[in-house]
């Protein structure tokens, strides 16, 4: 009951955020956004045809009407049909989101797990050569552009070694999944690892300096025990925050690059195509749903806070 009232309160609190996101993205992407009209026209259009297409796309209606329409779509989660293909937006999303999740999940999980492990190791040996090695590696990883990594990995694994496909997504069982997901996963882990390790190390070092860690040592706790119970468990709030908040970014921005470069029909590629073709219903859906995802993640984060830290209360302000 406490949880429910909390979630309701947070959902209500998320409304301004969603309104803000929809308003900004509406103004930028829809109102001033790309004009689809001229892509839908025939080779020899007339003014009348142009007016007709604009009317069909709804471009001729006033700002407020169109924005209200968008809000209505958000409320009903029905974004109509793609302006390009005519496919129902909901069916596009339900077709592509699972692909993106399957594509991104291994890299996301590995990137964070490895980051935490490396962060723990570096934090424990901080100042020593192990730490310097790991952090040096992290800086190198952080300094390479994602694009460069993708191109290099494709060339290496796809062309030079020929172990994995350069692109595509023809997944129907576990081996084919592994076959297609490996290179994108390696690329995303490679890129994320530097940032993750660095962040986790900083958080863990902060925690390692706390009094209770000294207490644990004074009572003879083993390093593994200290690292897990005192350091990791107490650093969960920033860790959970970072991991959860990276989800919406990865789902849209991360998948956008990977998918358009690996030619994988996920939500990122659809979004990218929607940008370059001005497919507003899809853009509206993606942006709107990302905002909703953000709000949901805000809620999940707060609930997880309470799970990982008994001091956090959902009702009061006491933190």
């Amino acid at each position: 009951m406490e949880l429910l009232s909390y979630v309701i309160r947070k959902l209500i609190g998320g409304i301004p955020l969603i309104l803000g996101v929809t308003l900004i993205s509406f103004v930028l992407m829809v109102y001033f956004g790309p004009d689809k009209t001229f892509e839908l026209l025939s080779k020899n259009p007339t003014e009348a045809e142009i007016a007709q297409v604009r009317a069909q796309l709804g471009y001729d209606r006033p700002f407020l009407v169109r924005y209200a329409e968008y809000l209505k779509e958000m409320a009903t989660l029905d974004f109509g049909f793609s302006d390009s293909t005519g496919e129902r937006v909901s069916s596009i999303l339900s077709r592509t989101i699972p692909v993106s999740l399957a594509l991104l999940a291994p890299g996301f999980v590995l990137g964070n797990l490895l980051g935490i492990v490396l962060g723990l190791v570096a934090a424990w040996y901080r100042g020593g050569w192990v730490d310097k090695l790991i952090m040096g590696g992290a800086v190198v990883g952080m300094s390479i552009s994602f694009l460069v990594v993708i191109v290099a990995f494709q060339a290496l694994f796809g062309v030079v070694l020929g172990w994995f496909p350069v692109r595509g997504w023809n997944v129907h069982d576990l081996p084919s999944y592994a076959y297609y997901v490996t290179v994108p996963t390696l690329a995303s882990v490679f890129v994320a690892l530097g940032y993750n390790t660095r962040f986790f190390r900083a958080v863990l070092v902060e925690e390692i300096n706390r009094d209770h860690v000294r207490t644990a040592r004074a009572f003879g706790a083993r390093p593994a025990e200290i690292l897990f119970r005192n350091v990791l468990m107490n650093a969960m709030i920033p860790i959970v925050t970072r991991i959860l908040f990276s989800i919406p970014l990865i789902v849209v921005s991360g998948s956008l690059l990977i998918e358009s470069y690996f030619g994988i029909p996920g939500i990122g590629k659809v979004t990218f195509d929607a940008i370059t073709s001005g497919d507003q219903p899809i853009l509206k859906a993606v942006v709107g749903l990302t905002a909703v995802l953000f709000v949901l993640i805000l809620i999940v984060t707060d609930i997880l806070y309470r799970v990982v830290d008994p001091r956090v209360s959902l009702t009061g302000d006491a933190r």
Partner: protein
Amino acid sequence: MIMGMLLLAACSEPPSDDNRDVYRHSEDEAPASLDPAQASTVYSNMVVVNVFDTLYRYKYLARPYELAPNLAAGFPDVSDDGLTYTFRIRSGVEFTDDPAFPDGTGREVTAHDLVYSIQRHFDPGVRSQGAWLWSGRIVGLDEWGQNGADYAAPIEGLKALDDHTLQIQLTAPYPQLVYTLAAGFSALVPKEAVEFYGREFSVKPVGSGPFKLTSFNSALATFDRNPKFDRGVLNLADEGYRDDLHGTYGLQALDGQAYPFVDGLEIHFIDENASRWNSFISGEVHNVMVPNEQIDRVLTSKDPIELNDDMAERFHKHSGIEAGFVYGGFNMADERFGHHPDPDQDAANRALRCAIRDAFDWQARNETFYFGLGNVFPGVIVPLVPEFDADLSRRSVQHNLQSANQALDEYGWRDQLPSMSYGMPSSVQQRQMFEQFRAQVQEIGFSTDQFSPESFATFGDFSRAIKNRELDLFFLGWSLDYPDAQNTLQLFYGPNETPGSNNFNYNNPAFDALYEQTLTLQPGQQRTALYRQMNQLVIDDCVVISGLSRTRVHLWDKQVRMLPDREILGGFFMRFVDIGNESETAAMSN
């Protein structure tokens, strides 16, 4: 656990049956819409003509392209005045089974379906991209659309005389009419499916073509053979088979066999050249159009085109010229350099345009971006059409800085050149092309700032800028709808000015008069002569910087017996593709 769920979600596609013969085709772009009414691109057409039927198709192997009846039983009867066409349609052809039909069983295709399919283009609700093919040509059709598109209302010029006979009455002779009935736009769609799927008809097409679409997304379209499809057997001789040209491809084995030959079809849409090429090399797809940057690695000779030994051992090749061209154009509506009411200024403006044209180096463009495989030609009658004049002076496509500078001096342009904006969709290659062009015009005195790029995030926005006459200079490509020079010459017809197809806003009464004169002419020497006259006008007025037709080099796996094409023939070839026996074990071995 979450991973497992994701995996399941991702693996929901049914496993493919490995015993089927599946031809895996690669294309460089995905079609936007599969609705014939919007089949304006090569990519849409590729799918549409395989899922739907058109009355006519092009012969498999004959070049220049020739029509052959497809759904039609023979060629139409044409009245003497050239205004009334009567088509006979095969009987016994059925649409594929689909939930859209009562009982889920496809019914017979009739002449009424063709009437409906062409009517749709004039229905304002359909957002047709092909209506212009028939606009103003068929008696009563335009009015029908303007009067609310009531499908129950009869149209005088477009009627089914019975289930298997269609009559079209033209407002004026239209020699290209039969060509238009081989275009994807004219494909026959069942009204039931259009109504059943509504807007989603564009991704769930139902037709009577050789294949039935089973899945479609921006990366892959898969098809099964349409078991109801029966057009008899392949007659190689009728299709224009010549042993000297086609002998090595193993097509003989197919002669006399019923088509389509493959059980399934996959079309992979792969945007990046490199990815597409690698998919081909690794055997994931059966064919590829050689991307430019691979030309040097693959070919030992460009004229004639010869593969290197390694490639020749593994793959078949075929090369052909594209049905279209790329060109640069000026916005003639701009008085700074386009048409001008003052004849002196008009002449000076022409000189400026000619100077820019002469500064443009087609050879460099060809070498850099088409690896020397492009076919540079003067004017706008492209090499693929029969009216092409191989002997035309090449003066207009020669890089000639001296004449360019001379003209600028002569007409007093020196030091007062206008600033020109160059529009382009934002892409790496477009930018490189621009950079090369800019380096060339700098040679005739334009400064970097005077010749500035304007890039557009979407092609639509780029088109809008052209249609709104905001760009001074732009480069575009045109692909032919049918093999007739009229298709490109109409781009310069005054009444077609923007937002029509005349993006140049070229307005020359002499040209227009000639154009109108040719409209009703049947193919022949007289028409060809007039076409060439018009062509010369366009060249002399320096409206365009034209042109180049690309040479396509197709490679395909030797186990596949076919002759791929994506120009005029396009998707029609897929029904004749056969996979050799080896493939049954080789598919997806990795």
